[in-house]
């Protein structure tokens, strides 16, 4: 309790705005958009916390970070301690501070934001501030590691779920090895989320900390191909966590979809992010740079893709979405950033056919206008095509960002592993245990496409249950 301000005075302080690159400048580069709060701003922002008794923010966080405690440590100017407080329950604060949808979680329930004209404490900004402060000032301390338990754990996939499981279990004294199919760890954090939203050096720093704690990284290993889950058990692993993420990209199945210049968002973002095609020919992977680019979809991946297209030199970058803006699953902040940068939104619109030139390169797409009808199973109003509303859009690049289906490599090669009708692995919500003994799963491979923090949350739950399993049921 170091905040001397009366509650009334705290309510009068305005929520701090994070300085960021101006839209005109940033849409030409891949550098991170927001710069982060200054120390002064962080102190002001922290002083807005009302220190309410109910602390609803903690329950609002999928991994139950002790938010009031870390804010109090900021007020004491012990930023590294604040970062460590977060890390007690969330191993990836620099990442979550950037990509969590705080407006739907901790900040949505913040009491400061409940009053008339009130805005919630910028918890995400503060989380990012302390994590960056700790890392940039070399204050990262390795957490205490329990004496060796003699148990071995394999983590399949190095995205947010896998990294969380690895971090939690290594602390508890287990030997942990991560198997990653790509050549660099981080999963969606490196191949999917662009540099301008999450710098890759931050993901690498998080992986480096895990490596310093003793986690072994085995890249370029495709579990289900190079080794199977059962072979991992034969190799002496006592428990296995499967966090392989969302797998196969969905396409719409409309005529002309295989023309050149129609990418899945996975391919487009992987080329640009992981393979650094934006830096071609310094890096060897090429990418098609469209002048008129349409991105299909309304989620965060669609926003990442369309903003990437601008940075790769598009004159016109469009979001084409079949519902209205209200139904868009993307974070408000991402939609806002896209609009600021000049992205044009074609709402209530869906493509039905593509046209190509003589080289089979896409040159146009035929679209239909939609209107919203009765709510569907998801509760959102169903888009219904308006007859005769067909029109042509000239495009030379299309990015399909309408979600993923589950990747079957593990399921196909793991007998007895139960999956649902969409091919997602079935896991107990309280333990993340699958139908196979000693096999746990979490993240998008279980839920279908979701968020980084939900995947990390699943990793937390799994790690707790796996620890119990390892200590009680695996005899050494």
């Amino acid at each position, binding site marked *: 309790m170091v905040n001397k301000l009366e509650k009334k005075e705290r309510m009068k302080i305005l929520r701090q705005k994070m300085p960021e690159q101006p839209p005109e400048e940033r849409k030409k580069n891949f550098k991170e958009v927001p710069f982060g709060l200054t120390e002064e701003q962080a102190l002001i922002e922290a002083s807005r916390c009302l220190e309410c008794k109910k602390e609803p923010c903690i329950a609002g966080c999928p991994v139950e970070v002790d938010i009031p405690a870390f804010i109090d440590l900021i007020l004491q100017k012990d930023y590294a301690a604040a970062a460590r407080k977060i890390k007690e329950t969330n191993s990836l604060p620099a990442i979550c501070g950037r990509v969590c949808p705080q407006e739907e979680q901790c900040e949505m329930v913040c009491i400061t934001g409940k009053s008339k004209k009130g805005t919630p404490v910028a918890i995400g900004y503060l989380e990012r501030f302390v994590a960056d402060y700790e890392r940039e000032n070399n204050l990262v301390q390795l957490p205490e590691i329990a004496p060796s338990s003699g148990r071995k754990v394999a983590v399949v996939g190095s995205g947010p779920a896998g990294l969380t499981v690895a971090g939690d279990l290594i602390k508890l004294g287990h030997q942990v090895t991560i198997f990653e199919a790509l050549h660099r760890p981080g999963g969606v954090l490196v191949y999917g989320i662009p540099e301008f939203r999450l710098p890759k050096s931050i993901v690498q720093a998080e992986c480096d900390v895990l490596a310093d704690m003793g986690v072994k990284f085995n890249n370029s290993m495709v579990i289900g191909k190079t080794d199977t889950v059962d072979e991992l058990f034969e190799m002496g692993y006592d428990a296995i966590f499967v966090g392989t993420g969302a797998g196969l990209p969905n396409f719409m199945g409309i005529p002309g979809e295989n023309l050149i210049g129609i990418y*899945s968002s996975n391919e487009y973002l992987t080329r640009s992010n992981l393979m650094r095609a934006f830096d071609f020919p310094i890096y060897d992977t090429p990418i098609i740079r469209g002048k008129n680019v349409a991105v299909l979809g309304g989620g965060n991946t669609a926003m990442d893709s369309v903003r990437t297209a601008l940075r790769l030199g598009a004159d016109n970058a469009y979001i084409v979405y079949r519902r209205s803006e209200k139904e868009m699953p993307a974070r408000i902040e991402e939609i806002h950033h896209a609009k600021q940068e000049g992205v044009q939104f074609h709402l209530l619109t869906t493509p039905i056919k593509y046209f190509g030139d003589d080289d089979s390169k896409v040159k146009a797409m035929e679209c239909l206008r939609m209107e919203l009808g009765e709510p569907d199973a998801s509760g959102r109003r169903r888009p219904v095509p308006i007859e005769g509303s067909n029109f042509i859009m000239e495009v030379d690049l299309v990015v399909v960002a309408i979600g993923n289906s589950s990747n079957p490599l593990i399921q196909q090669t793991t007998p007895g592993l139960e999956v649902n009708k969409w091919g997602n692995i079935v896991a107990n919500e309280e333990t993340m245990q699958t139908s196979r003994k000693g096999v746990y799963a979490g993240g998008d491979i279980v839920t279908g496409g979701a968020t980084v923090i939900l995947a990390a949350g699943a990793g937390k739950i799994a790690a707790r249950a796996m620890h119990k399993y390892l200590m009680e049921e695996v005899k050494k």
Partner: protein
Amino acid sequence: MPKVLDNLQIGPMNWKMRLETPKLVSKAKAGQFVIIRVNERGERVPMSIAGLDRENGVLTIIYQVVGKTSALMTATPAGGEIADCVGPLGVPTHVENWGTACLVGGGIGIAPIYPIAQAYKEAGNKLITIIGARSKNILFYEEEHKAVADELYVCTDDGSYGHHGFVSDVLKKILDDGVDIGMIMAIGPVPMMRVVVNLTREYKTPTWVSLNPLMVDGTGMCGGCRVSLDGETKFACVDGPDFDGHKVDFDLLTKRLAAYGKQERQAMERFLTDPGCKLAESVKAFKYPD
């Protein structure tokens, strides 16, 4: 990082590289492929498996210089390393005893049919193998194929060695002679595969091909390797690379393979004209066909 045991030039623009990848080799089956990355800035490139030495854990790949990545590969010396070699990827070639089976390999495709030949033979097939190349100096693996096949036919487009003509000419003669072939597998340049399947369609002989579209991850994640079979889209990396040749849309495959032609050419020319380029003169002589 996988160690390069040797890397030998076996033709004007063809090289044979042997890599120490014991884990991969212990798992790989005929018809599967690997993805390699030469260095930290390199692209991910799928490569057919041209040989598996299980005893020593050694993988053989045979590659043709077609651009920057393959040119860079030629410069990796024996004892050196490449950044990654991941696999085995894709579904292994379906193998059963059809009585008589026929393998057709054209150009660089002579390499991947070799492990398949061994697998077909092991399954008890009588094996007819047809290999062909533009000219004698591009041919390779004749001895290897001779050791496995019951009948081996060799042809060159220019008549400099063996039968003067295309692999499809030889295949047509065999089919016309009424040889009862249960399965044909053809691997090679797209025009060759297309000619072969157009031919065998008339004879209603089952014919499979192994497709080589562009890929990034090779595990189903990106969908860049989409191919079309009778109007249905498949991912070559997880559904293939082998497909029923009579269903493949070769026109689409050809065009998609050329998607980055301009950039590839730009990268290669920039690379070859760099004053610091240390490639062998024989590689620097590389020219794009006009």
